[in-house]
């Protein structure tokens, strides 16, 4: 049964694909694609809808059998219990600190480096850029053990710093910014240089303001990655005062598996900021996904 699930899903679509052809000659009517898209869209929304419903449901109803599809009434008990019995606000703060540090540092360091590799000519440039491109091939799993040993030697383990340092800059970010700077015409910068600006002034006053779209892509990429990161905090942080939100949630799950409303309330707290941000900046998110796919 289980193994046939995925193939079933696949084979249903070629049959729906040619259907709109028949409607071509008749009077215009709703596209046949709705028959495919509407159920898929609903299916994709189910987990999040369930998350909100469960977070607002009375705990008793979630563990009654058979479980009701719709709660009899909505309640904030799950959230109240969550805030009263856990450090979730502290973890939210920790994650926010990590994300802000990661995004801020990425924006500064990667745009500087991207500009340097794109525009400046200096000794070691080719070598430096080659080294950075080479790192893209290395899987993060290879780095976990030595980085852990390294961080514990310098006393970073179990502190928030351990979660932040790996997010200060990335090869992807440098690469993205370099690509962008290569794409803008150099004349603007030369005009600035002729007017007597230094490289730094040209960079900050002329180039960076043009780079907003690329900076938005970089910021979203870094925000998503640092906010949702689980593996590295799991390894590097065992002290629950330095827990990130994801780590706290994952830990919750093993300790309080049965309290669904509380777990789902935690899930809402962890996911809501990104959902809202996505709805607010959907275009930039899609641009980020496209770029990380095509150029990554």
């Amino acid at each position: 049964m289980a193994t046939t699930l995925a193939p079933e899903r696949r084979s249903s679509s070629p049959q729906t694909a040619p259907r709109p052809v028949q409607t071509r000659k008749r009077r215009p009517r709703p596209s046949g694609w709705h028959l495919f898209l509407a159920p898929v869209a609903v299916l994709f929304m189910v987990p999040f809808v369930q998350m909100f419903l469960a977070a607002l449901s009375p705990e008793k109803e979630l563990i009654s059998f058979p479980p009701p599809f719709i709660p009899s009434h909505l309640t904030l008990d799950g959230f109240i219990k969550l805030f009263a019995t856990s450090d979730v606000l502290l973890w939210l703060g920790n994650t926010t600190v990590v994300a802000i540090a990661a995004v801020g540092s990425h924006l500064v360091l990667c745009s500087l480096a991207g500009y340097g590799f794109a525009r400046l000519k200096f000794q070691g440039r080719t070598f430096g850029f080659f080294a950075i491109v080479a790192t893209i091939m290395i899987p993060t799993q290879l780095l976990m053990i030595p980085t852990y040993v390294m961080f514990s030697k310098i006393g970073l383990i179990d502190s928030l710093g351990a979660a932040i340092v790996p997010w200060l800059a990335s090869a992807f970010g440098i690469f993205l910014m370099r690509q962008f700077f290569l794409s803008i015409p150099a004349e603007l910068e030369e005009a600035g240089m002729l007017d007597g600006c230094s490289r730094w002034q040209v960079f900050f006053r002329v180039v960076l303001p043009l780079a907003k779209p690329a900076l938005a892509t970089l910021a979203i990429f870094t925000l998503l990655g640092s906010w949702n990161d689980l593996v590295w905090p799991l390894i590097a942080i065992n002290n629950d005062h330095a827990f990130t939100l994801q780590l706290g949630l994952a830990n919750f799950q093993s300790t309080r598996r049965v309290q669904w409303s509380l777990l789902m309330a935690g899930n809402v707290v962890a996911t809501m900021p990104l959902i809202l941000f996505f709805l607010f900046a959907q275009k930039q998110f899609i641009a980020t996904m496209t770029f990380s796919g095509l150029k990554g």
Partner: protein
Amino acid sequence: MTQSLMQRPVPTGEVAKAAFPAAARSRARRRARLRTLEGWAFVGPATLFVVGLSIFPAGWAFLLSLQKWDGFSEAKFVGTGNYSKMLSDQELWDAVAHTGLYTLLFVPASILLGLFLAVALNRKIRFIGFYRTAIFVPFVASAAATGILSTYLFNPQYGLVNNVFRVIGLPQQGWLEDKAEAMVVIALMSLWGQAAFTTVIYLAALQDVPGELLESARIDGANRWQAFWHVSWPQLAPVTVFVSIWQTIGAIQLFDLVYTTTRGGPLDSTKTIVYFLWEKAFKVLQFGYGSAVAYGLFALTLVITIAVVLYSRRAKVEAF
């Protein structure tokens, strides 16, 4: 014009060198040194972090893979011992098999789903914005959130899926608690979270397919399906190669969702390579053996990438 302006300092230096050798040469050298300094001031900090946190530890990991070390006591050099131990470690090979199963479930499904969704979303019809948002939003869900949602939705007793099964008269399933089904649930939930990625990539590629080509195919009497199959699909081939590599690399590195759903169970049926690696390294502190497994994973990634690229070269697809 742009070139000559950018390189202005160099020619003046060259000319000056001929006229006033010694003084000018030292000035030119000082300028070059300043330029190197300036360049590294721009790229240095980021390069230091990236290289320091990847190439350096990667080299260290190789040294570790030749040792037996628990992080505290004296490290013992064992040569290729860890690697030969891998070959005969049944638990590792089981993990490889579980990872392979997940890859087979997830990668083709994610590519096909992304392709269908992209084709469907690539048109101007009513509610298209809503459909797009609904399908893309799950992309922001973290592994921890997805894991909790999976255990909730697929809970055998209280979960929505079994509840729906019960109402429509299908037999109840164990899902994450059944060793034959757990990996399928994990693959389904990965699809939910990551369909947006392949969809967006295919959408971007579809928008690059020249409209005139499709139109002329239709005028020649091709139906939409034929037009897609003979015109669009060949144009999408490079993207398909890229996406298969990308998704495969992601799939063989599966860890998060296993950790947040089954922790490798039931009966180790979802224990993947990276989960095995994590257990060896951070549960039983076999840093040396863990590093060797990590290098094995690295090698596997490279082999798969090279194989797909070679295969697509032979099939005459320009992917890179």
